[in-house]
């Protein structure tokens, strides 16, 4: 048997070159986004069904406990006033939970490198994480709405305001979640942010009552609270009743989103608490 040694075929092929993208790595962003969405869909019981049940419980409790005494708030029947507030509350809490827990767990478990190593720019990272949170918020919101309209006759006054506030509010909380997730080092700190900042703000910003019933000082404060505008504008989309100025709301939400985006961008760009 005569075996001559021949050069392998590999030697003939040129060395692999780095992959090229245009100005945006679309495939990378899409993959990160899909990862974020699949992450919450996989545990849908916890991420969609649980908030649905909790929010329906709130609805039942408030209607049973208060519906007897308070029939209408500003000419809107109490249950119809309450429903948009509750949907919005569920949406923002879930949008926040999605991006914050994803980053937090990735940091604690060390698999954040899998996100930092791929060729994704700071803007692309924010897009992936934030849009994942927005998707969760919108899915939860839609599920809530589908369940609630079976029980309560919710009208639709202006679709634009419903959609704008749903997306802007989910985006805002999702970006806050990105920032919180990067900042927090322990689950304690994350829980503290949820318990002492996000939940109080979403509870006290007019989800359950018209801010007209607040004392004068707090009525003024409420107008500085972006949570108030998102609930108020969203409610306007369903009922046609708004406590504050709609234009101010749209401007406030847009500018807060831009500001949060820039903060998150800066954090990813510098690798704040992410890179050595």
């Amino acid at each position: 048997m005569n075996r001559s040694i021949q050069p392998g075929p590999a030697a003939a092929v040129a060395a692999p070159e780095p992959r090229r993208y245009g100005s945006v790595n679309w495939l990378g962003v899409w993959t990160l986004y899909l990862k974020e969405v699949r992450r919450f869909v996989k545990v849908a019981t916890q991420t969609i069904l649980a908030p649905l049940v909790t929010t329906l419980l709130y609805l039942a409790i408030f209607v049973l406990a208060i519906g007897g005494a308070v029939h209408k708030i500003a000419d809107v029947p109490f249950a119809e006033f309450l429903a948009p507030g509750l949907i919005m509350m569920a949406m923002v809490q879930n949008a926040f939970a999605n991006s914050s827990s994803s980053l937090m767990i990735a940091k604690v478990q060390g698999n954040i490198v899998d996100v930092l190593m791929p060729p994704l720019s700071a803007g692309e990272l924010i897009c992936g994480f934030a849009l994942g949170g927005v998707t969760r918020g919108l899915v939860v919101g839609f599920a809530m709405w589908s369940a609630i309209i079976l029980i309560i006759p919710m009208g639709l006054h202006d679709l634009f305001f419903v959609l704008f506030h749903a997306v802007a509010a989910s985006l805002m909380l999702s970006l806050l979640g990105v920032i919180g997730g990067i900042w927090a080092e322990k689950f304690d700190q994350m829980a503290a942010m949820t318990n002492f900042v996000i939940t109080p703000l979403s509870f006290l910003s007019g989800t359950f009552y018209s801010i007209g019933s607040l004392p004068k000082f707090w009525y003024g404060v409420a107008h500085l609270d972006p949570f108030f505008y998102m609930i108020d504008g969203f409610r306007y989309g369903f009922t046609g009743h708004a406590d504050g100025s709609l234009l101010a709301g749209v401007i406030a939400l847009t500018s807060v989103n831009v500001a949060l985006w820039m903060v998150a961008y800066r954090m990813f760009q510098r690798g704040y608490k992410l890179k050595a």
Partner: protein
Amino acid sequence: MADLAPRRFGAVNWRGLATLCLKDVRRSLREYRYSVLGPVISNLLFLAVFALALGGTASRVGELSFLQFLVPGLIIFAVCQAAYQTSSESLLFDKMEGMIADTLMAPLTPVELTAGYACSSAAAGLITGAAVAVPMLILVRLPVASLPLILFFAIGGALLHGLIGIVVGLWAERWDHYAAALTFLVIPFAFLSGTFYSIRSLPAVAEAAARLNPVFYVIDGFRAGCTGHADGSTTIGALVVGLIVLALGSFAHRLFRIGYKIKP
């Protein structure tokens, strides 16, 4: 050289029991931000939201103002939820980290294990409840009707939920399971049992169903002690709560005895 001999106990290993009990109380207090401050804030939020949503309307339940009706419900709800969380989180955490062996190796009988976990979670629940009660009682005055009823139903409710926590903690294999039991079982039972409203305002069928719910008796009995207002009978309530605690206790004991999901 002294002879090495196994340590001897009487019928009950009191020191072991006390150590097990203190372990979880300390664990709960160490994470006070989560276990104590969290419930204080969230229950004050509930109070604020209800007060604001009612606005100026003078809603009354029986002879009580609505807030007087609400406060005992919120306090006992905090007690029950904290008790559930203490035992279930402790067991599940120890199981997942493999530390449960430290508890199982110690010379503790299943009765002592059950009693230790139940007492520590009840104590942690009562501590959280007391912390929730203080700011609320400053804001809302309650005409205390009967201290024995308050103590009986606070302790009964805490034990009941501590025992549920033991069963869930032993059964659960992941945090998902723990969260599911909390979201779909413990919170709905408490919310729908008259924490926030009188069950007399319910439709007849729902009211009858609420009267079959043991958590209703815990809340109603505690409220009767705090305010004198009861939607049901406190005697029946005391019997129901006592019997359920015994039944859950023997069930939890059986799980510890057969080593359900904790021994190979």
